[in-house]
């Protein structure tokens, strides 16, 4: 999912996407070139990002020329192992690419390889993080549907973030990743390289700490990253807690409606309103479920991604702090840093807006449910009164 929506005049270059809801954003938006209000369809709001009045100067949407999607996770079984293969579709008008369309298949390992290459070759730039290799908490199978879907979305975002980057998107490794049918021949080193490199860097960093005079901007950035990391973790914790509480609320709600229905069964006249209330409670619990799901699918992953970003940035500083080419690193990093911050604000702002909108939508739907119940009940007294008058 890219950080910008696609304006109408690029419809010719739009990808032929399958029906994934979260990808509807490309096909439904036709009026966003002027940065006007968002479309109202709730499904198109999932993972959708809003245009700001002040345009980003780095990557103008009108010049976006590289479109990537990650989809179709498929299980692959070999003699040695089982893993998931993702389809990576690319459409582009860039001259660096021989063709305008590519379809390749990649596994998680391949993404790791790509990222390590990018970091290696551009040590001073901020490379977007990948979703975690393993899930730490809970016993989530690697082949669990939700896990695969969450990972797929994150991989999609990763590639799109790279594609938006003015420097990284032109990386040769990136090109190869997107285009080569067989990646094995291009992989000279294993995926463990990055982590090994990271450790080496860190240990060297610790030994030379204090010997280099760091420019003020670095210290500022360092402090910010530390703070940001802890704040974003807090927001994430609160969000996770809300998801949990809402789930427990939903469990109780599911027991609530049926009691009204049961009661209705043993009543005469009172049965009708009781049954209606049972229906209302049921409909509201469906909406609650959807609302909670939205939280898990939009806000939680966005926050999680930036937690990973913060971790990446912490590592990044170590590398940058050591760079001998301090001046060059400064400028490249400054630009990248600004780009990253803007991206962060935009992404998180969108996620929060989406969450708020979903909540409004949830309450509006529940409101309609109860109002229609009231309407159905208010009609009857008239009939009763008429009856009394007549008799």
């Amino acid at each position, binding site marked *: 999912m890219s950080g910008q929506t696609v304006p109408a005049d690029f419809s010719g270059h739009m990808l032929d996407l399958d029906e994934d809801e979260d990808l509807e954003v490309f096909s439904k938006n036709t009026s966003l070139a002027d940065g006007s209000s968002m479309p109202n369809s709730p499904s198109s709001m999932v993972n959708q990002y809003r245009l700001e009045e002040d345009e980003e100067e780095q990557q103008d949407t009108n010049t976006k020329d590289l479109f990537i999607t990650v989809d179709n996770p498929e299980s692959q079984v070999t003699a040695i192992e089982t893993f998931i293969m993702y389809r990576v579709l690319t459409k582009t008008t860039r001259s660096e690419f021989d063709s305008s369309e590519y379809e390749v298949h990649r596994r998680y390992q391949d993404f790791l390889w790509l990222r390590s290459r990018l970091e290696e070759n551009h040590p001073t730039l901020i490379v977007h993080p990948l979703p975690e290799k393993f899930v730490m908490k809970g016993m989530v199978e690697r082949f669990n549907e939700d896990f695969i879907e969450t990972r797929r979305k994150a991989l999609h975002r990763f590639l799109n973030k790279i594609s938006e980057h003015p420097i990284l998107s032109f990386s040769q490794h990136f090109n190869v990743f997107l285009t080569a049918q067989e990646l094995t021949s291009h992989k000279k080193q294993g995926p463990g390289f990055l982590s090994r490199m990271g450790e080496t860097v860190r240990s060297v960093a610790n030994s030379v700490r204090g010997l280099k005079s760091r420019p003020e901007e670095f210290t500022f950035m360092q402090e910010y990253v530390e703070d940001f990391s802890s704040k974003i973790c807090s927001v994430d914790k609160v969000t996770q807690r809300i998801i949990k509480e809402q789930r427990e609320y939903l469990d109780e709600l599911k027991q609530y409606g049926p009691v009204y229905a049961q009661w209705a069964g043993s009543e005469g006249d009172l049965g009708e309103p009781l049954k209606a209330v049972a229906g209302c409670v049921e409909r509201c619990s469906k909406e609650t479920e959807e609302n909670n799901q939205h939280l898990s699918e939009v806000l939680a992953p966005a926050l999680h991604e930036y937690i990973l970003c913060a971790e990446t940035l912490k590592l990044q500083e170590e590398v940058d702090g050591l760079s001998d080419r301090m001046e060059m690193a400064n400028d490249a990093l400054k630009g990248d840093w600004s780009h990253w911050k803007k991206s962060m604000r935009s992404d998180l702002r969108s996620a929060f807006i989406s969450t708020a*909108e979903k909540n409004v939508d949830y309450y509006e739907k529940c409101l309609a449910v109860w109002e229609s119940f009231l309407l159905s009940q208010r009609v009857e007294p008239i009939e009763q009164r008429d009856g009394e008058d007549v008799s």
Partner: protein
Amino acid sequence: MMADSADSADSADSGTNEVAVIGNTDLTSSESENNLINTMVERGTALLRKMEINVTEAEKRTGKNTVNMQETYTVYLIETRPAEAFPEGGQPSAPDTLWRRYSEFELLRNYLLVTYPFVVIPPLPEKRAEFVWHKLSADNLDPDFVERRRVGLENFLLRVASHRVLSDDEIFICFLTEEKKWKDAVLETGFQDKADSRLKSLSAMFRVKNPDQQFTALKHSSDELNTVISQLLRVRAKVADRLYGVYKVHGNYGRVFSEWSAIEKEMGDGLQSAGHHMDTYATSIDDILEEEEHYADQLKEYLFYTDAVRSVCKKQDLIQYELEMAAQDLANKKQQRDELINGTVRIFSLKGMTSKLFGQDSQEQRETKLAALAQSIEEGEEAVMEKNKECREFCKTAWADIELFKEQKDRDLREALISYAIMQISMCKKGIQVWSNAKECFNKIHTCTPTLI
């Protein structure tokens, strides 16, 4: 079932009215409750046409109890005033007032239970808080509990005052008007002696040979209602508990956004103000759930009503049993007389055995016995007639009261469901407001930096 063409004009008008009424979904539950009370007053008894009754205040008192220990208890202020106390634009006249504690209400109710066993006696609000969810206090002295109890006690008095039979009772009127004299008056009725025997009979295990179909069915449906309302109250309390948790956790966003905003130049304001709305959201649940307790109280009233219905059924059972006993007794006596006449001993009796052992009675003795039996049989027949009459009358009056009760129940509970819907609507509207505000705050977050870092 739409009205026919003759009424179409009316229904068209009322149709418009109804739509307008729907617009006013801001009716609070207390207003809805007032509507309920007004309905009772409208269907007025003579008492309510004369007198306005309110329970307006509650106060804590301390004093020595029967075992000379200090105790704290709550008293409630009963206000009564003549019903036409509001002349156009004039000042309402000062009400007569007296203080009563819960135990006095209990005494009154017990008196009514014994004195009018064929009436479904309105229940008192619960003695102790039940079906509590965690934040709700189970303490009898908790102000929220006291307030709800005040409302419940007022409700009780109005229910009694609007009952065509109960409202005429002198002890009841005395309860409302004579603070000190009342207790003696109620004890003088000697109802407690009847109460003791009644208690015995209620708990006694007796079998009725020919149970009344209607009353048996009523007992079953009343038990069923009791079960289902209990379950509903239990689940509702759990739902309330969980909902409380959801809202309160959102309050953490307030704190966290505030901290985060301190390190952000561009996002700071938006986050901070959004955080305030999250705080508002979190605190809103307290009022929402407090109002829902009124709904729970309306359900509880009918839960306790099922006990009153059960009482009436039990009493009917008892009278039926007594009738059967009287009939059986009469049958036995008749049998004895027949045997005496025919000289056969069918029924084992000591007299019969002794006469067998020690010889037959003389003619004179037999005649004395027969005369005594004849007398006894006559008395027995009268007793059966009386009991029969009592039974029939009881069934008739009780069933009439029960029919009225059923209608009342359906009406009241339907109103309760409507007021519940109104509460839900109010909650949704608040939710829409808060989240729309939060969204506006998020919207204001700028993504562009005026200057690079």
